């Protein structure tokens, strides 16, 4: 038991190999998952009722035009060939040609991806410290009014759809108080501060969705480490509360929180779809949405697979952080 709270790095030769194996195994799982995901995404986008050319060109186009469109887009080839073509291109960074705009998908998804990253970054920078603080306070004052207030508010806002909270935020902060711009897109050529200011309102909606869950996990692990032997020992050694909380409780509680934060990336992207539509913000969520609306399958497939890649990378990063930061989690002992 002694030294469980130690944050010393494991001595490299012995444990380095273990971490390496663990991460390799996780990477393997992630690749298998990506493969299945790509097949599912491709299948659902391709095996659709209706003719792709007809869907894009509309009911008035002639049979011949539709056939030519389908041939040029390559959708008249066998399905397996289409899949292999798409996936080998995707791996090389060629996401195909948008059926709707007739330009490379990457030229549309690239800037959109950057925009989404900006929005997600602002939301994360706000929510991570805020929810860890909330969870820490709630956990340290377990059962108090403060705890109940933080927990109940957190859970409630996690459950309410993001567009509902966003609407209320737009009404209150944007229109009634006039504190924040209601559009997410800053005017062309704005500096960073202005861009962030425009992103605050949509970020707040995402923050409210994510806060409750992260705070809840932090709270649970804070309670666990407050009750743990090492904390009692630390108090008995004569350390002040501040030292115990900072050095022991918080350090140990951060680990599960990191894992949770990474899994929230997925929810965050889901939230982006709705929030970007609501604010008409040109991010990957809005691109996926418009591609779905316009039946632009090449854009839809690549956009969705890109989201899957981002999510799996985030999960892998969490695994790496988790195993590097925490010497007691070993793949072997965790199994």
């Amino acid at each position, binding site marked *: 038991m002694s030294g469980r709270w130690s944050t010393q790095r494991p001595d490299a030769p012995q444990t380095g190999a273990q971490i390496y194996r663990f991460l390799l195994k996780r990477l393997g799982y992630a690749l298998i998952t990506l493969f299945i995901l790509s097949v599912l995404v491709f299948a659902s986008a391709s095996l659709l009722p209706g003719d792709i050319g007809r869907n894009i060109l509309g009911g008035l186009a002639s049979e011949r035009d539709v056939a030519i469109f389908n041939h040029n887009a390559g959708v008249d080839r066998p399905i397996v060939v289409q899949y292999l073509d798409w996936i080998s291109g995707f791996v090389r960074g060629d996401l195909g040609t948008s059926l709707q705009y007739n330009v490379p998908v990457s030229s549309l998804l690239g800037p959109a991806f950057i925009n989404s990253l900006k929005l997600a970054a602002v939301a994360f920078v706000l929510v991570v410290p805020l929810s860890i603080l909330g969870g820490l306070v709630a956990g340290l004052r377990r059962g108090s009014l403060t705890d109940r207030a933080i927990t109940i508010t957190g859970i409630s806002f996690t459950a309410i759809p993001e567009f509902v909270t966003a*609407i209320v935020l737009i*009404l209150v902060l944007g229109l009634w108080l006039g504190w924040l711009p209601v559009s997410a897109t800053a005017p062309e050529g704005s500096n960073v501060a202005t861009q962030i200011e425009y992103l605050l309102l949509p970020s707040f909606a995402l923050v409210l969705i994510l806060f409750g869950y992260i705070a809840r996990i932090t709270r649970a692990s804070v309670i666990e480490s407050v009750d743990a032997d090492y904390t009692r020992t630390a108090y008995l050694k004569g350390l002040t509360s501040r030292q115990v909380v900072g050095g022991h409780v918080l350090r140990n509680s951060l680990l599960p929180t990191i894992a949770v934060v990474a899994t929230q990336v997925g929810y965050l992207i889901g939230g982006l779809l709705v929030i970007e539509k609501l604010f008409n913000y040109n991010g990957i969520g809005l691109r996926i949405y418009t591609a779905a609306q316009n039946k632009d399958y090449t854009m839809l497939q690549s956009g969705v697979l890109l989201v899957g890649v981002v999510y799996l990378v985030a999960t892998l990063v969490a695994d790496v952080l988790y195993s590097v930061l925490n010497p007691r989690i070993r793949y072997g002992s965790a199994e």
Partner: protein
Amino acid sequence: MSAMTDDAAGIEPAAGFIPKEASIARREMLRQLARSKTFLIGCVLVGFWVFWAIASTWLIPHDPLEQTDAILQSPSFAHWFGTDQFGRDIFSRVLAGAASTLRVAPLATLLGVTAGTMVGLVTGYFGGIVDETISRIVDAVLALPLIVIAVVALTALGSSDVTLIVVIGLIFTPPVARTVRATVLGERQLDYVQAAQLRGERAPYIMLSEILPNISGPIVVEATVRLGYAIFAVAGLTFLGFGVQPPSPDWSLQIAENYTLLSAGTYWWTVLFAGLAIATLVIGVNLVSDGLQQVVDQ
């Protein structure tokens, strides 16, 4: 001889006790639920909207679809929540709007929980390669946010409440299956399952008549949690235009139809009341599921 009678004596009263113990446990659970403030407040909120979902047809002051010349009027004595851009009474539309959410989300949940329970029972009970394969597919599906998968599927299948129910139900199947599977793995080793196997009972009987009743608690909790997610998902997808279509008096649809007017800043009533309706319903469902979880976990 004496050992045999002892055994018989030991079995006899125990067999007689089983239903009684079960009913005592159930009564105790209900008693705890009745004392749980979380659960009760949740029930009141959900009950309120269930009532209006059923009764709004007869009790609302205006036809929710009736268009009038009185467009975009602020809340007044005649129109408590004001009117929208087509002059429809928002008070009536908000109350009538309970019906579509409370039709689609529970049916999707029912589908997902039923299918997930079946898959979870089979994979948990048999294990092996089937289990491994399904787990991989589950991971792949869960690698995407629910709403993204749903958008892809709904684009493929077309938008209506039926496809929305089927798509959300199918997306819920893997996570429910995962929960049920974990619970079944715990049960499979217990004496009553092995006793049934030794009696020569067939696998479907053991799964449905022996294991299922014993894991009903976690399944009910899972179902209420899923219902919360389902309302969340249905609301989001309807807002994006993949669910109930206009002119239905649906809450998310009302927000989608009216939020673009907000730039003028004065038509807050067209979106705020529908938003509050969604918020109270999801919070109610989450309180119910939290209350249930606390009691079942004990």
